[in-house]
């Protein structure tokens, strides 16, 4: 069984040395993976070890897309079969993350519950659905920071949360080495919302298939 670790443009530079990792060529891609007999155990230790491995890979190449933990395939033929339909998307995503890394910004604060609107026509209903969809992709809470972040951020992925104090998780793609400037641009609070920034991390949130 093959445990897939990450998708790369090409095998990493010589400074990466881990004999447990091999690189399988799939089309124009190099897939970092390891051989195993069973699914990896899910524990803090194994998650930290995998994160460490992906960081080492990331440090040895310009573009990397980490795989989700527990991505197993039977053999190289299945790996090629699974990745073939994604090849164009993967190439585009590798272009996006080349020379960049991920920062994560969490926005905490009490939710303001909007009064429910009752659509009386189909048009109103669709307009309300469109507004809700737009709101789900945006983070109005950090609007005051946009001008400050604009020169640092190349792409953004937003995940909104409901029902708990964490209102949104925002992943930003910044230039490698740009994390200090990013962290310096994030205040502890903005308009009553508490902000927590972390990173840099490999660009997990910018893989194809992860909700934007």
């Amino acid at each position, binding site marked *: 069984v093959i445990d*897939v670790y*990450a*998708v790369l443009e090409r095998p990493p530079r010589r400074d990466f040395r881990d004999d447990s990792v091999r690189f399988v060529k799939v089309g124009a891609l190099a897939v970092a993976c390891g051989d195993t007999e069973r*699914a*990896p155990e*899910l524990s*803090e230790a194994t*998650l*930290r070890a*995998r*994160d460490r491995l992906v960081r080492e890979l990331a440090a040895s190449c310009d573009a990397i*897309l*980490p*795989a*989700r*933990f*527990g*991505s*197993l*395939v039977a053999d190289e033929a299945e*790996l090629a079969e*699974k*990745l073939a339909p*994604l090849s164009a998307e*993967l190439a585009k995503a590798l272009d996006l993350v080349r020379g960049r890394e991920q920062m*994560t910004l*969490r926005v*905490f*604060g*009490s939710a303001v519950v909007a009064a429910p609107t009752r659509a009386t026509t189909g048009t109103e209903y669709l307009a309300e659905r469109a507004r809700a969809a737009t709101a789900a992709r945006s983070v109005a809470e950090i609007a005051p920071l946009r001008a400050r972040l604009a020169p640092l951020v190349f792409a953004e992925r937003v995940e909104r949360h409901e029902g*708990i*104090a*964490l209102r949104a*998780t925002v992943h930003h793609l910044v230039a490698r080495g740009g994390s200090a400037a990013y962290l310096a641009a994030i205040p*502890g*609070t903005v308009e*009553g*919302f*508490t902000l*927590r920034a*972390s*990173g840099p*991390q*490999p660009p*997990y*949130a910018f*893989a*194809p*298939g*992860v909700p934007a």
Partner: protein
Amino acid sequence: MKEELPDTPAEQILETADATLLDIVDNLLNRGVMVNGELVLGVAKVDLVYLRLSLLLCAADRAFGAQGRD
């Protein structure tokens, strides 16, 4: 000079080194290239990790409050 330490478990996890644990769980289990449609992991164990993450975030809610702590 004595370094000021975070007060609560939630603050400890959201601050400094343990912020990485939250990111690791979120990134590795929730993001990344999905080679397979479904992951081959024990469901109960995945649920356990997410339960811990949920508890952590609820604890952050109580720790920070609506107006933040700054």
